[in-house]
């Protein structure tokens, strides 16, 4: 399981073998994506091989999305658990370097969003990816129709100013007769 992805592309992960649990730091050059999983380097202690799931379907991601509620029980927004977020981020990084032949099921947040001053001040860089990926899944399923900036405001009461066109993910959207591209 990935614990943290650093700015230089390296990442900290934990061997999930219950008798080992060793923490490692690896770089992108030591991993490869094959047949729907990312193979991490063998654990140096127990020699177990770890494989991260990256062939998510939108249905699978929809199942793991968590609803964020306030103290009155009102739904404020949606988030994708970090453990899945980091798998998707790592997949996107491999795809960007040409090491993965298949694109991630969800597009990364647009650079304008990641570089926004408000977003850069967030304590955990995975947080904006979590909100964006969850928003993208809900948007794809037509559970949300407003732009990401409004969803972000509903959750945080912080205003983000983004050009209108990039405030929605560029993915196929469900229709009653199949899918259509927006």
């Amino acid at each position, binding site marked *: *399981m990935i614990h943290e992805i650093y700015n230089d592309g390296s990442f900290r992960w934990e*061997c*999930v*073998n*219950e008798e080992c649990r060793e923490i490692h730091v690896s770089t992108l050059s030591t991993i490869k994506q*094959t*047949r*729907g*999983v990312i*193979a991490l380097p*063998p*654990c140096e202690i*127990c*020699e*177990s*091989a*770890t*494989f*991260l*799931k990256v*062939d*998510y379907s939108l249905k*699978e*991601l929809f*199942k*793991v999305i968590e609803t964020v509620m306030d103290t009155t029980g009102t739904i404020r927004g949606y988030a994708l*658990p970090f*453990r*899945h977020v980091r*798998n998707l981020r790592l997949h996107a990084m491999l795809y960007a370097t040409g090491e993965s032949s298949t694109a991630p099921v969800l597009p990364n947040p647009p650079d304008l969003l990641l570089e926004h001053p408000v977003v850069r001040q967030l304590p955990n860089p995975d947080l904006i990816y979590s909100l964006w990926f969850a928003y993208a899944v809900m948007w794809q399923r037509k559970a949300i129709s407003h732009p990401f900036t409004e969803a972000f405001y509903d959750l945080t009461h912080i205003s983000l100013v983004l050009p209108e066109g990039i405030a929605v993910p560029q993915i196929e959207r469900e229709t009653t007769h199949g899918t259509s591209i927006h």
Partner: protein
Amino acid sequence: MALNTVTTGNTVLASDINQLVNQLQTPSGGTSTGSYYLDSWSNAANLEVGTWVNPLSRVSVPVSVSIDTSISSPVSANAPSTNLLSATGFHVYTTSSGSAIKFYCGGNYTIQY
């Protein structure tokens, strides 16, 4: 992990039921463990053999799977690999390193949810 047994005459608690639910529907952050074994005869190098691993847990979407070769190190086989990781299990496979040989390996797995 050993499960609690419920004795006749005692109250069945929520935790008694949930220990079973957590096995069949592993909660986020939980793990599921088991074993696999692969073997076959090879009539050509790089012949692949694989099997589908069915964990007890259903419904929950896994994050990763870890496999070792503690039951049998690869003999005339390459290091095993996995794919198709899903809520119903995963595929584990290996390839032969020669022809006209028996090749095999086996070990334990840990699925993280």
